[in-house]
């Protein structure tokens, strides 16, 4: 019989090993899944995990998908450490896409250097504004930010849909629900020729480095961690709970808003009814897979980006359904949560051994 035995203290090794075990288990479960579906297992796995990154273009695409995940995941992980549960990054992403995109369309006639920075600022501001609603509700009325931020996600989606069907619709677009295509001055510079890899990726990496320093070196990062680990000790030290909530939600909202702007000013190039394949939600998985550490988030973001690419590739080459992506992401989170048990517990085999022997 297998039993779980509590460890005397949390295992440091398992903190890092658990995500790896979860990845392996996800792979095995995927294998089983493909086998049961009657799909050639080897080919399916190749199509899912290897083929997408076997070319230079594929690698660049990995960066394109990873940039928003890393950007949002790193910001969310800080909030999660402080026990601020911003689940609505997807909505903040859409809000940033709307405000940033609106600036691009407002300056449609202007081809100047300042358009893109202005769009970025607008994207950040939009995401922050959207995140400030749950922050206000939380600090004023103690409303759960989990619920409010999540519900606001759907409102943001509908707002974007409303705008591209109406005010921001392309006047020459035959009534398609799309905005005009952004001009060159309003689209992101490409960092790797012949690919779609834009400056969002290096910016995401710089963001990770900044947050790493923030977390490990600054009083503010300390404050966030204390507030998450022991709120009473934080109040005793003199930290304000409300300012921590505001900071975490604004940081997450700003990062998500910027990621949303990167999507519309990068790969998409215009406003359309759906601007994100769920980056804001996947970033939650990324944050936990990366152990709520900025550097871990960097790697986790790449892994999850691969799941998007793999899903597309499996659709094209194997005729597998699009849902495979979601299944793999869900499996990964599921196994990750399950393997986290191993940080506090270890397996014991057989029946309880009687310790009081030596007679």
């Amino acid at each position, binding site marked *: 019989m297998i039993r779980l035995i509590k460890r005397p203290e949390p295992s440091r090794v398992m903190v890092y090993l658990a995500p790896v075990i979860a990845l392996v288990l996800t792979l095995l479960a995927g294998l089983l899944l493909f086998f049961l579906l009657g799909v050639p297992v080897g080919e399916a796995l190749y199509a899912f995990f290897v083929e997408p990154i076997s070319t230079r273009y594929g690698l660049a695409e990995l960066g394109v998908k990873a940039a928003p995940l890393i950007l949002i995941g790193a910001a969310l992980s800080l909030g999660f450490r402080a026990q601020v549960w911003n689940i609505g990054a997807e909505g903040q992403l859409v809000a940033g896409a709307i405000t940033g995109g609106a600036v691009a369309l407002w300056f449609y006639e202007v081809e100047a250097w300042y358009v893109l920075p202005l769009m970025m600022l607008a994207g950040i501001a939009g995401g922050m504004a959207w995140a400030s609603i749950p922050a206000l509700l939380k600090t004023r009325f103690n409303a759960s930010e989990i619920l409010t931020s999540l519900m606001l996600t759907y409102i943001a989606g509908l707002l974007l849909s409303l705008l591209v069907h109406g005010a921001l619709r392309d006047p020459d677009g035959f009534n398609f629900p799309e905005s005009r295509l952004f001009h060159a001055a309003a689209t992101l510079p490409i960092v790797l020729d012949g690919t779609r890899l834009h400056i969002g990726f290096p910016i995401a990496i710089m963001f990770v480095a900044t947050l790493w320093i923030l977390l490990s070196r600054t009083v503010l990062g300390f404050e966030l961690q204390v507030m998450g680990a022991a709120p009473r*000790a934080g*109040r*005793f030290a*003199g930290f*304000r709970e409300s300012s921590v909530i505001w900071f975490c939600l604004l940081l997450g909202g700003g990062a998500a808003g910027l990621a949303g702007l990167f999507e519309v000013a990068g790969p998409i190039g215009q406003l359309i009814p759906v601007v994100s394949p769920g980056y804001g939600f996947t970033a939650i998985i990324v944050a936990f897979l990366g152990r709520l550490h900025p550097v871990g988030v960097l790697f986790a973001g790449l892994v999850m980006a691969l799941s998007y690419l793999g899903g597309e590739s499996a659709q094209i080459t194997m005729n597998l359904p699009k849902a495979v992506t979601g299944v793999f992401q869900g499996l990964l989170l599921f196994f990750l949560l399950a393997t986290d048990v191993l940080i506090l517990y270890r397996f014991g085999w057989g029946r309880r051994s009687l310790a009081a022997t030596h007679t």
Partner: protein
Amino acid sequence: MKSESPITASNSHEGTPLLDLRGMVKSYPGCLANDQVDLTLMPGQIHALLGENGAGKSTLVKMIYGVLRADQGDIEWQGAPVTINNPSVARGLGIAMVFQHFSLFESLTVSENIALGLGDSSGVNTDSLDEDIVTISARYGLPLDPERYVYTLSVGERQRIEIVRCLLQNPKLLIMDEPTSVLTPQEVDTLFKTLRQLSSEGVAILYISHKLDEIKALCHHATILRGGRVVGIANPATESASSLASMMIGQDVTPHRLPESAGFGPVSLACQSLTLPAADSFSVKLDDINLSVRAGEILGIAGVAGNGQDELINALSGEILLSSADMVQFKGQPVGRLMPGSRRQIGLCVVPEERLGHAAVPGMSLAENAFLTGAQRLSLSRVGFIRHRASRQFASRVIDAFQVQCRGSAAAADSLSGGNLQKFVVGREIMQKPEVLVVAQPTWGVDAGAAAAIHDALLGLAADGAAVIIVSQDLDELLGVCHSIMAICAGKTSDVFPAKHITMEEIGLLMGGAALDGLQATDGVVNGQESARKFGPEAPL
């Protein structure tokens, strides 16, 4: 499995030990908690298990109660070898335990709590439970109303629930882990009466404590543990408290004497009609609290837990901001609306009662916990960045000065024993040289050696001109180190009395909310000056 009655069962084994432990060994990674411990307990004996924190007392009783399993050693119960794998086996044998920390549900009634704690294997008939509770509590002088909700009960009454729960199972051996640490002297007397009655009926009692006076008064026999080994067996009645203490800590202890104060300086901290409404139904409102403490003075505030001490501490530290800044005055300056960091900056430091989760962040290192409150006064940060090296050095200085046993400044706070963490959090504030230090329960759960070190440090701080407030329910401690003493009861404070002229019984009355008629309050007594200093209900506003 259960025998009929503890009385007949123990009498029929006259001469045979009830419990005989031989060669008990229990090791944890990196530490030998029990090393070849022997212990013999006769029926009806009140046996003290004496030792400092970390001496292995808890480990030993947990093995008896089946919570832990021994690595080696034999347990004989009434002459027959037994293996106690889990608490239900222990209960089946007739072993019951009252833990130091109660496990009660506040929102349930007394009888519901008892029913929950009994479980299925206890053999107690739950239908007649209410009657049984009333019968048992009347028989042993433990008045308890089965219908009362636990949140309405005092700590002493809550302890009675745990004791009654044990007695319902007709135990032959009752283990009590530091039972008096939360009781007033009057409640302690009641408890001792109950325990003596149980003993006369043949129930053996294993009594864990480090309060030597109690052990001398109550126990027939004492086993002294140090570092996991038995270092002495004594008859407490014939030993002196200091000889027991020196056996316990392995060196002679000299009880410290309060230095004769040459007079105090100006008032450092004052509360003026400090009033604070209750935050929720579980907290206590503070009602017009007036007090002042002068430079060099140590003021003790006695009280049974849950009478507003936490609220007062939070109001003084700045965790709760008051409606008017004048309610707390630091050297005449209103600070009642300053944040904790700003109060520390000007020299008002606080040690809250709860070590883990309040005074320290459990999972963080001692260096980070040193930064937690040292940041302002010791400038441990620069333009928003933490000075990690300076924080580590500060933590190391505290560790050295207070002889904190740990793996250095990188050790996590929750890896320290309670006593060592207490030394660290008290030391952390003292080493910041505050002008006013407010300490809650400075030696709660701390062994005699560490307690003496903490008391010396507090006395030294006061001698250097700081004002100190000690909030404690340990009256020996208050009488030992304080110049003046007051009590808090239901959010109201009593008059202030000079420690020299007040007895333990009188403090007990104050803690119960009574006023003392015969005794002159401090006004003008401590120093023969400051006759304007008036406290309590008649304080001028």
